[in-house]
């Protein structure tokens, strides 16, 4: 049974079609990426699947059916528009929000204490939220999303305005949650973050799903006949190579369609070149995204 099943949902606000016939499935225990540029319809999609908005068309199944009050306790949510009660102490704020997820005060107090220690916030737990730095508040919001050990975690732009140390901490935390068995739906416009973490993804642009599937399969589908080669000496001209260009300390070779990578490797070995790196040049998600969006524009034109 999928954790989330979105079937052909559409949502319009006035004259703007924010989501247009989007479908995808999130499997239990995976990290799933919901990708797209700003304004693509990611947040609207999340709000539809969390039952904040009703879709104009299509249906959503979450943890095996429609959203219920009981299921809200099984879901952790870090919204893009983040916020906490500013005028009360961090401890009270977190305890209240945890209690709304069904934790009793004792449980909430204990788990919040553990997270505060881990996030280095224990010393400020009695301070008013408004007295905390932005980074501290961001970490506190993450505690709200995770404290009740949800089965499904939905996080919208988790790395926004985080420094590199905290970004790494969030990544580690997400991987830890996955190994605990939680399903994670991560929405972001930062494609490279998804490359590191997600197993599968859907890419949305202008409310429509442009790409959907396993990360590696899609990258392979979009890879061209290019190689990345790093050698101890400069590469000589090779037959079958149309173009060469430097690429992050290596050389990117564009091959003619009838030439295979094995033939090139054979030529390099035959010429006694010491090869340090030899790989098929897979496109990054950013490159794939640009190609998809440009292709769409050309189709429209």
């Amino acid at each position, binding site marked *: 049974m999928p954790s989330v099943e979105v079937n052909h949902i559409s949502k319009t606000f006035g004259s703007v079609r924010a989501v247009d016939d989007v479908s995808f499935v999130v499997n239990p225990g995976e990290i799933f990426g919901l990708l797209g540029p700003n304004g693509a319809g990611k947040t609207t999609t999340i709000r539809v699947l969390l039952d*904040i908005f009703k879709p104009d068309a299509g249906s959503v199944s979450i943890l095996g059916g429609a959203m219920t*009050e009981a299921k809200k306790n099984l879901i952790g*949510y870090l919204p893009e528009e983040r*916020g*906490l*009660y500013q005028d009360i102490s961090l401890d009270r704020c977190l305890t*209240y*929000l945890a209690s*709304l997820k069904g934790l*009793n005060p004792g449980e909430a107090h204990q788990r919040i204490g553990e997270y505060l220690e881990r996030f280095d916030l224990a010393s400020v737990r009695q301070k008013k939220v408004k007295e905390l730095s932005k980074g501290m508040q961001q970490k506190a919001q993450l505690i709200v999303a995770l404290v009740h050990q949800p089965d499904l975690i939905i996080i919208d732009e988790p790395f926004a305005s985080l420094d590199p140390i905290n970004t790494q901490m969030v990544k580690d935390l997400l991987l830890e949650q996955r190994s605990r068995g939680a399903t994670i739906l991560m929405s972001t416009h930062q494609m490279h973050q998804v490359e590191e973490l997600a197993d599968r993804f859907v890419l949305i642009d202008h409310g429509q799903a442009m790409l959907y599937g396993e990360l590696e399969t899609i990258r392979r589908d979009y890879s061209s006949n290019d190689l990345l080669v790093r050698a101890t000496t400069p590469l000589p001209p090779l037959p079958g190579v149309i173009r060469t260009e430097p690429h992050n300390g290596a050389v990117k070779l564009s091959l003619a369609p009838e030439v295979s990578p094995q033939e090139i490797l054979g030529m390099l070995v035959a010429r006694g070149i010491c090869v340090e790196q030899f790989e098929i040049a897979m496109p990054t998600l950013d490159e794939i995204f640009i190609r998809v969006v440009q292709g769409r524009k050309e189709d429209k034109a």
Partner: protein
Amino acid sequence: MSKFWRVFSHEYARHVLRKRFIFALVSMPLFISVIMAISIFSAVTQTNFSPIGYIDHSGFLANPIYPPETQGMLERTVKLIAYPDEASARQALEANKIQAYYVLATDYLETARADLVFVKEPDNEVQNQFITFLTTNILTNQPAAVRDRIASGNSITIQSLDGSQRMSESDWFNILVPILSGVLFFIVILTSGGYLLQAVVEEKENRTIEIVVTSVSPGQLMAGKIAGNISVGLTQLLVWILFLLVGILIGRNTIDWVQRIQIQPSYLVLMALTLLPTFVMIAALMAAIGSMVTEMREAQQISGLFTLPVMIPYWFTAAIMTNPNGPLAIGLSYFPLTAPVTLVLRAGFTQIPTGQLVINLLVLAAAAVVSVWLAARTFHMGMLNYGKRLSWRQVFGKSTPTL
């Protein structure tokens, strides 16, 4: 504990446990006590209780009966000194031994002529004491009942046919009861309404609303918020009533008119029946405003549209007092926003016809239900409208909420 109670206790505790709230709670009765103390102090210190002299040419005060001497804080007996002639009295006046003297003519018992000589005219209270002294001595030979009756003077009491309403000259302070009840009512309703307004706008302003609505149903959330903030208002009301009762208990022993304060149980029942739907109506309207707007300042401006009409009956207090069953009073009782204070004022001065009262309370209850519906609708439509105010057309238009 259900999530309703969690929201309720959070909303209640976040106000009641604040220093600001406790300060406001205690400062109001303290402020009134200080004002009263200053008024009493200034009244006492401004009245001159130094002796009064008199010269009795008529001779009927040969064996005078002086009033018993009292030296209370508010009521003190002025010492009366008899002088044989005007020269000695004038001398005493000039020497500041007395503040004034009366000269009773030889035919005083026939003409009741008495001249008062003073440098600064004595206060009414002082003059009344001398008049009482004269009356007592004139009536010396009369039976005690006649003497007391004449001394007490006229006392007109107006009473409603069923005896539930009563007003007399000596019960003047009972007029204040409905007026002060209305003021108390107004302050408490607006305070809890204001708290609710703040609670809803704050969640939009600080963006917590999205986390909250994915944890608890909007219905439970709004119900918990409204009940929590109404309870804050009721706490305030109860504490103030407690202060008032303590004040009355203390005042009973020292201030005469406090002993005669009368509050009918039926009046308290009417207050309760009016208070509850009004609380819900104002609270729901505040929640609706909070959901519509994006900032607290804007919310406060719009809330004035609903809170000012609550005060309107005070502009017509005199008209409502003189004609509590007139068209104006009845009209204001039918309009939900002006009904609460009007009903409380009217009930203090008249017996509101039962049929009218039932309709008024039903209208108030219906208004409360409509307000809750409006609050829920506005909340659904406006909760995620960050930085964008809902238009009146959107709120009252045909379109259904997005949720």
